[in-house]
């Protein structure tokens, strides 16, 4: 059983972890050569004095540890600083883009779950048969395919050659109907779902194989239960546990998965904001995006641990 003390201790351990993460990210972003004002520095119309004033206005003339504490203050105050490109609060910039990313990630993960679960079980139960080999080859391909190349190939076939689907974006100008959105989502969703199915089906396969080796499966067989009954009532339920943890982790890690796809398809989500902010060296936005991505990952880890303890009474959590 899980004690409240365990929960509290895990929660408390998040604080140093998050401080560590923010230090790492801040160092990476601010210690890199160049900065958000490089764009103006190359412009002969901008005097050194004006440049210095801009620098002071953004607080970039301060020593780095002062800048870090300023950032912490802004983070705790809730707007997470202001975007250099648009001067708007970082948190607002991010939350505006979240729905698009959640839509893309959510739909593709849902499709992936529904397909990967049975694929993995079949592959695991029928291990080393031709159907297992075919499924294994497919999921290996999914893991090994460069996502951006698959995206290019789909664009080539369905947008450039066949003109069936738009090559990118969220909706047509003047569009916005359900069908229009569906057409824009078709390619990015299929790509994300395919990559995820490949990964999840492998986990489910391994998990099923592991469970099928257990003594209680043999016992169930010995009691005369049908093969089908053994798989459905005993194997799947137990194999599901490690699988659910992996799924939960990928759910909170949506952003990481969608960044490439969003960039290739000009999908107006967090991933695209990330690439845009990189071009302009928009430090506060980059910092905000990386923090929110890490935060969800860390919380997801915690939730997975807790859920694991709740589902499986054999796990002692003290």
């Amino acid at each position, binding site marked *: 059983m899980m004690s409240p003390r365990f929960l509290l201790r895990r929660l408390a351990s998040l604080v140093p*972890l998050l401080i560590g*993460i923010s230090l790492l990210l801040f160092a990476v972003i601010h210690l890199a*050569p160049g900065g958000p004002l490089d764009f103006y520095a190359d412009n002969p119309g901008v005097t050194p004095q004006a440049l210095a004033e801009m620098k002071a206005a953004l607080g970039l003339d301060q020593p780095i540890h002062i800048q870090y504490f300023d950032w912490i203050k802004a983070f705790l105050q809730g707007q997470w600083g202001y975007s250099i490109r648009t001067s708007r609060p970082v948190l607002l910039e991010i939350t505006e883009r979240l729905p698009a990313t959640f839509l893309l990630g959510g739909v593709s993960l849902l499709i992936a779950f529904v397909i990967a679960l049975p694929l993995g079980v079949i592959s695991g139960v029928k291990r080393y048969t031709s159907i297992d080999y075919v499924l294994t080859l497919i999921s290996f*391909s999914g893991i*090994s*395919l460069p996502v951006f190349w*698959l995206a290019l190939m789909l664009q080539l076939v369905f947008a450039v050659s066949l003109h069936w689907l738009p090559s990118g974006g969220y909706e047509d100008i003047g569009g916005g109907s359900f069908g229009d959105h569906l057409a824009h989502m078709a390619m990015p969703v299929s790509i994300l779902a395919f990559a995820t199915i490949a990964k999840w089906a492998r986990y489910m396969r391994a998990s099923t194989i592991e469970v099928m080796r257990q003594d209680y499966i043999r016992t169930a067989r010995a009691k005369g239960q049908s093969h089908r009954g053994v798989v459905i009532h005993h194997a799947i339920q137990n194999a599901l546990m490690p699988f659910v943890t992996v799924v939960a982790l990928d759910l909170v890690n949506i952003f*990481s998965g969608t960044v490439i796809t969003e960039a290739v398809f000009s999908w107006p989500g967090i991933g695209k904001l990330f690439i845009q902010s*990189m071009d302009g060296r928009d430090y506060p936005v980059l910092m905000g995006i990386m923090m929110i991505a890490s935060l969800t990952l860390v919380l997801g880890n915690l939730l997975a641990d807790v859920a694991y303890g709740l589902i499986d009474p054999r796990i002692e959590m003290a």
Partner: protein
Amino acid sequence: MATLTQTRSGFRRRQQSFAARIWRRFVRNRLAVASLVVLLCLAAIVLLAPLLAPYAFDEQDIELLGQPAPPSWAHLLGTDQLGRDALSRLLYGGRISLAVGLAAATVSTALGTAVGAWSGFHRGWVDTVMMRGTDVVLSVPALPLILLISGLLRPTVPLLIVIIGALSWMGTARLVRGQFLSLREREFVEAARALGATNGRLILRHILPNAVAPITVAATLTVGQAILLESAMSFFGFGVQPPTPTWGNLLNEATQWLDSAPWLAIPPGLLIFLTVLSVNSLGDGLRDAFDTRA
């Protein structure tokens, strides 16, 4: 029946070395053997690129400037907008892509093994500090972090190798630590210690050789990951910079001509796919060969 086979092969085992035993198990896996052959061929082709490539990678055909030209007898895979031979660039690009993948995986494995071995051997506060540090790096989503760093630094090839290596060692570190935590309690380690072996000797001569199998598998899979990461970085223009070709930045250039010159976009991606697929199934084959349970 299972016991019977086990006993019989156990009887034969005594006459064979560890490596020979693994090899015998490995060659039974046809997919893994095929992958090894594919990888060796690819490696040979890119190593011999200067001999095989019909042109130099930056040689321009003045008559074909301005627009990518479709495949012809003079240029089997066509040319890009600067009149450069796509096949030659593909071969030379493979050298960089494969070299970066191998080198980055080497850095990652060395780093991960060192951290994991040190942590697992010494335990105590050394272990705590190192594993909390590993947790921090693991808690930042890897792909965005790598894109971020390379986007800000615009790295050279050696720096690129270090970046990929420095951000992909954590899995290996955890794995090696786990191995060390259990191996250090074994009797043969105690015996060596009683005979006066130093810590360094215990780690390198007695414990590490016993952890070689999982490390090899992890290292192989890291090569595939590193090749994919390099190609993604170069695809976004954050990795290896032109005119040096890699499979990733060839694809980056090809996107601008996707509707008029699709022949530029297909081969580089196909080769990345083939390489990573082979590396992954090789790693899987090795895992099965090492796994004495199966």
